[in-house]
């Protein structure tokens, strides 16, 4: 149980958010209304997906006060505290991606082949293309095809053919690239990587306690962020860390833990 404490907490948070959204849609609960694109917290605080708002702005839309404020609130939260926690604590695609990754392990796919088809910087290209297409076409381009939107909107408001997208991501992640969508392609993940790169809530690595078993690196969906492991004690500073805490759970030496990094002094 101790090995899965954060995983269970994440699943609870992810499902709870969806349940609150569904409750708002079906029973009219006033706790969290809308969906991950834009919502109202407790009927008053506006929240909005900052990347969607930026796309809409690029597309030439007039941004209304509520969504602008919502986007600012969400951005500030992740910039100061959350880092890229959206990806592993909120986004429903994370469940699919983790599921596919788990199946890869069972089927021992990673042991058979190690070829890398896709760079992790592809997501920043996707971000650029999303903004360019939004500008050219005059609509928020990523929102048109976003599996993140399709899945959470599908769960809350009904799927249509959206089930296919779940299957698509699962198959892609299972057979083509491990964590292919979330850790390579998703421009929203890239966006939150940039926004949250200086947040204070971080995983901290202690080389003195580490027995170099590499459990953390093998479980990590964004292996590049753990480049300090076995080398030196430091915060996991890379914004691409999703704070999923799998590394903390699998560590048998207590070498990894959540910690608060001072915003100003930049202590190492």
């Amino acid at each position: 149980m101790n090995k899965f404490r954060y995983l269970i907490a994440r699943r609870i948070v992810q499902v709870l958010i969806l349940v609150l959204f569904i409750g708002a849609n079906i029973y009219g609960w006033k706790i969290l209304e809308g969906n991950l694109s834009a919502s109202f917290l407790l009927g008053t605080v506006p929240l909005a997906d900052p990347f969607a708002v930026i796309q809409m702005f690029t597309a030439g839309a007039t941004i209304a006060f509520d969504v602008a404020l919502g986007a600012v609130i969400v951005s500030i939260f992740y910039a100061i505290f959350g880092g890229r926690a959206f990806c592993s604590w909120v986004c429903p695609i994370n469940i699919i991606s983790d599921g596919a990754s788990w199946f890869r392990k069972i089927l021992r796919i990673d042991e058979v082949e190690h070829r890398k088809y896709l760079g992790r910087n592809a997501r920043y290209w996707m971000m650029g293309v999303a903004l360019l297409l939004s500008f050219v076409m005059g609509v928020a381009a990523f929102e048109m095809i976003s599996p993140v939107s399709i899945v959470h909107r599908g769960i809350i408001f009904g799927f249509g053919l959206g089930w296919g997208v779940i299957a698509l991501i699962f198959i892609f992640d299972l057979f083509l690239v491990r964590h292919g969508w979330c850790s390579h392609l998703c421009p929203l993940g890239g966006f939150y990587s940039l926004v949250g790169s200086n947040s204070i809530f971080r995983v901290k690595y202690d080389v003195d306690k580490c027995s170099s078993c590499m459990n953390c690196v093998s479980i990590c969906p964004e292996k590049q962020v753990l480049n300090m492991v076995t080398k030196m004690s430091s915060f996991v500073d890379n914004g691409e860390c999703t704070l999923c805490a799998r590394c903390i759970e699998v560590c048998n030496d207590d070498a990894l833990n959540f910690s608060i990094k001072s915003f100003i002094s930049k202590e190492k």
Partner: protein
Amino acid sequence: MAISERRKFLLKTAKAAAAATVGGLVWGVIANESKASPLALRPPGAVDDFLQTCIRCGLCVNECPYHTLSLAKIGENVAYGTPYFVARDIPCYMCEDIPCTATCPSGALDIKSLLNEKEEFDINKSQMGVAVVDHNNCIAYWGIQCDACYRVCPLMDVAITQEYRRNERTGKHAFLTPMVHSDACTGCGMCEHACITSKASIIVLPREVALGKAGTNYIKGWENEDERRLIDVSTDVTTQTDRSEKRVSDYLNNSDLFDE
């Protein structure tokens, strides 16, 4: 020849750019396809650049007490994730407090456009669409008595009126036929919902699809207000022909006008 770092970098950049171009093209085609849904009816107060402004949060759908609105699902041929309604299934019941429009956080539904002179909510100002009658299949036009759409219209005798006409075939009956007035029709769709023919003979279409536009060549000279449409019209004549060199009175009085 040794492969320099520079060559590697250039190749890597070119590969990424190529992938982005190919992916972007496919993506653009998909997104452009899903953008084209001209027949979807939008909630009241939808602004002109609705697709651009709507953030697809579904708050309007949550608020709708009649389950009229739904967010477009994939495969429904409406821009994915945007709110719309199918009048034949559930029309807009014209709530006086307009909860869908009032809740919109993105400004895609503009409550200000639905305020009357007294700054009160006025759902009758909404322009969701306009009803169109199929004269050949509407049984009232056959001479059979039906006034379902006329009776159900929330703006009865304003948006839909009944026209009376003698039925020459029987010689002793009247046609009582529905007539839609597009200036008053809100596009709520209650008429389409109520229509008794097996497929509705009065349907609601988006206004930009169904309505014509007279342009500036024709003006209602008997209405002072209508002249305003000419305010911004340019009076420069841009068409140049052989006749442009002469004054109109000259070439019209010329006898060989038809011989040119």
